[in-house]
């Protein structure tokens, strides 16, 4: 049946005065399938919208072209209008004759406007209606990692009504929350207790993840528990696998000969039965790894404690303090005021062992001369690394890692706590050395995101917006390999043949798959090949 297309031209209150709308309307009305051309000067105002609705109804229009401003802002609005008139909202195409025509050029641009409308008419003719549907989602959430971030996120998720499984590969919760982290100002016992007391949180320790299948709202996860396998369904997964630190390798890091890690030093500080309190303590950071906020924070806290608790002489050798997280500058000043000596160096100091002490030799840039110091204890520089098992976890979850091995590749700014796969989130240091304030914000952000996704127990999705035609699909797996959001898997088609199945819930509708399919089997409604080529046809 020949479509009945309605074209609505708008001159934006007269602002598009370099288009001759009368001439344009005449041209447009000649296009095949165009049943009505309507002119307005205020289509986006309520009066204009009402007029559109009555035109669509009165003239039995079945698809609509709006030639006006940019669809980037107005498309949802006009979709609503045609929906009001009883049409499927996807049977709309817009011609941007304002920002990308009238305003972008000088002189008469009627011809270009007509061309843009023609492109839109060509496209709208081929558009197909699209339905949305609600799919049920599980309200259970899996949190992987029982450190500070993992436990905290579990507690907050439970607070807003989710059932949470808190999974820890190690034997106990909070193993990562060592004494070292106490300087962040929280009580590890209290945090863990909060999780243990909450009946909505199930805690599984010594339980690694074996396999992850399924999609957002409906992940199936195999977990190993006491030598047995348990299989669970989850709506979302929160990764909180944490980090580890390692003393830098090389000459200066001969641990055990007076050179210790921040954590070891922290333990010494807490040890009341320490045989001999070190008189001189040195710290070292920002030479091997210039992107660590952790080193600064750990150094400042430990240096301050050593000074106040032991009254030791404390020297800090560093290049730049990383004070770009809240409260750190204040801590830095406090340390200086307490008498911690900061020795700024451009080059890494040389370190040698001498009579059971550690000799540090460095060039102080302020004094312009060499400083030589024999320390009882030197807290060495540490590298901030992803936790062990991060790689395995990333391949189980099919999510990317950055060049340093942490979770979340590029595009950090677009998806702050989300992975590229819908329903999988990150929290805390598994994404890198973010600084404590950011970790705290992320914990709550994840809660907000999970809440928005799962709280109603269902998810509204567009049905088969992107779909592989089972007749044409040759199951070459190309789309599965290229899908940036892990939304495609092999499924059995009706005939029993294996084909690419695109999950409506997990799909982000980018079309990367449709652009590469060698069998031309993938149809992306609104951007099908036919629809794009029809626009080209109009040039």
């Amino acid at each position, binding site marked *: 049946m020949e479509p009945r297309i309605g074209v609505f031209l708008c001159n934006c209150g007269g602002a598009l005065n370099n288009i001759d709308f009368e001439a344009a309307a005449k041209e447009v009305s000649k296009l095949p399938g165009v049943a009505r051309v309507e002119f307005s000067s205020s289509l986006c105002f309520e009066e204009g919208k009402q007029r559109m609705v009555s035109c669509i109804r009165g003239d039995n229009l079945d698809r609509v072209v709006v030639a006006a401003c940019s669809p980037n802002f107005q498309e949802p609005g006009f979709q609503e209008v045609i929906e009001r008139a009883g049409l499927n909202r996807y049977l709309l195409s817009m011609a941007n004759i304002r920002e990308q025509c009238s305003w972008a050029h000088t002189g008469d641009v009627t011809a270009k406007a007509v061309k843009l409308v023609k492109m839109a008419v060509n496209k709208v003719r081929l558009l197909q209606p699209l339905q949305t549907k609600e799919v049920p989602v599980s309200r259970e959430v899996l949190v992987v990692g029982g450190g500070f971030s993992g436990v905290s996120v579990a507690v907050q998720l439970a607070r807003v009504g989710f059932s949470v499984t808190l999974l820890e590969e190690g034997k106990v919760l909070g193993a990562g929350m060592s004494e070292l982290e106490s300087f962040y100002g929280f009580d590890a016992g209290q945090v863990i207790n909060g999780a243990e007391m909450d009946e909505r949180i199930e805690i599984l320790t010594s339980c690694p993840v074996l396999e992850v299948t399924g999609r957002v709202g409906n992940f199936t996860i195999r977990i190993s528990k006491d030598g047995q396998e348990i299989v669970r369904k989850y709506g979302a997964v929160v990764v909180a696998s944490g980090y580890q630190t390692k003393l830098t390798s090389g000459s200066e890091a001969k641990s055990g000969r007076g050179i210790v890690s921040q954590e070891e030093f922290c333990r010494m500080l807490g040890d009341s039965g320490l045989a001999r309190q070190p008189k001189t303590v040195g710290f070292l950071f920002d030479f091997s790894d210039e992107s660590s906020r952790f080193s600064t924070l750990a150094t400042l806290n430990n240096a301050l404690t050593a000074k106040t608790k032991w009254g030791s002489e404390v020297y800090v050798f560093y290049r730049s303090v990383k004070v770009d997280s809240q409260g750190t500058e204040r801590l830095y000043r406090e340390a200086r005021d307490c008498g911690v000596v900061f020795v700024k160096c451009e080059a890494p100091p040389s370190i040698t062992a001498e009579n059971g002490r550690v000799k540090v030799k460095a060039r102080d840039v302020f004094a312009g001369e060499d400083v030589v110091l024999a320390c009882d204890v030197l807290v060495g520089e540490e590298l901030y690394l992803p936790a062990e098992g991060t790689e395995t976890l990333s391949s189980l979850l099919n999510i990317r890692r950055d060049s340093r091995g942490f979770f979340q590749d590029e595009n950090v700014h677009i998806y702050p706590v989300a992975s590229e796969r819908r329903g999988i989130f990150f929290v805390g240091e598994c994404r890198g050395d973010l600084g404590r304030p950011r970790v705290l914000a992320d914990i709550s952000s994840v809660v907000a995101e999970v809440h928005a996704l799962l709280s109603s127990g269902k998810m509204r999705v567009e049905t088969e917006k992107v779909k592989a035609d089972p007749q*044409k699909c*040759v199951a*070459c797996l*190309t789309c599965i390999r290229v899908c940036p959001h892990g939304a495609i898997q092999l499924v059995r088609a009706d005939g029993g043949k294996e084909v690419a199945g695109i999950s409506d819930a997990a799909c982000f509708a980018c079309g990367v798959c449709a652009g590469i399919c*060698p*069998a*031309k089997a993938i149809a992306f409604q609104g951007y099908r090949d036919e629809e794009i080529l029809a626009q080209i046809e109009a040039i």
Partner: protein
Amino acid sequence: MIIAERKPMEEIKRLIAPYKKILVAGCGTCVTVCWAGGEKEVGLLASQLKLARSAEGKDVSIVEATVERQCENEMVAEIKDKVASVDAVISLACGAGVQTMAEMFEDKPILPGVNTTFIGRPQKEGVWVEMCGACGDCFLDRTGGVCPIVRCAKGLLNGPCGGTRRGGKCEIDPDKDCAWVLVYRRLEKQGRLDIMRQYYAPKNYRAVKRPGKVQAAKA
């Protein structure tokens, strides 16, 4: 899976030079999977030819068609009208497909648009590697499932050549693993290293019957 590669444009142009109306015929099986002759590639080649001919100011008429398996008469029959309407067909199927078409349309020149290269499998997205040389005398049971005939650059039957690089890489192509290292590791894992001690007489290439034919026993 049969792997093929599109022929160089120069050659294709030469092949089709005498003809005005041409059908680009794709195959929806192996060559689709290896991005050489599926519907997409048919479209690209057709478009390229149209562009080329119009740039040269030549008359041009290009028709496109893709069948599910070009090596089946019944499936090829579906496009016989299209074939009838053209001067020549350029087939993007493997040799079996080209020959099927040639046999069915004896009066039409059926031109190969791809070079059929080997039997292989995808290594990663967009990369295929040879896995099987179709030698007709499979002995993968004795090599831990690694075929040295095609995966060893020299096709050696009795252990590595001696030029294996550090890390078990091939002397000829350092990006490739030495097939014999792979064989060794696999057998070691299975506790079957004793098989390595066996000596293989020069391979009986008579098993490769040319032209080959396989008849299913049950048929």
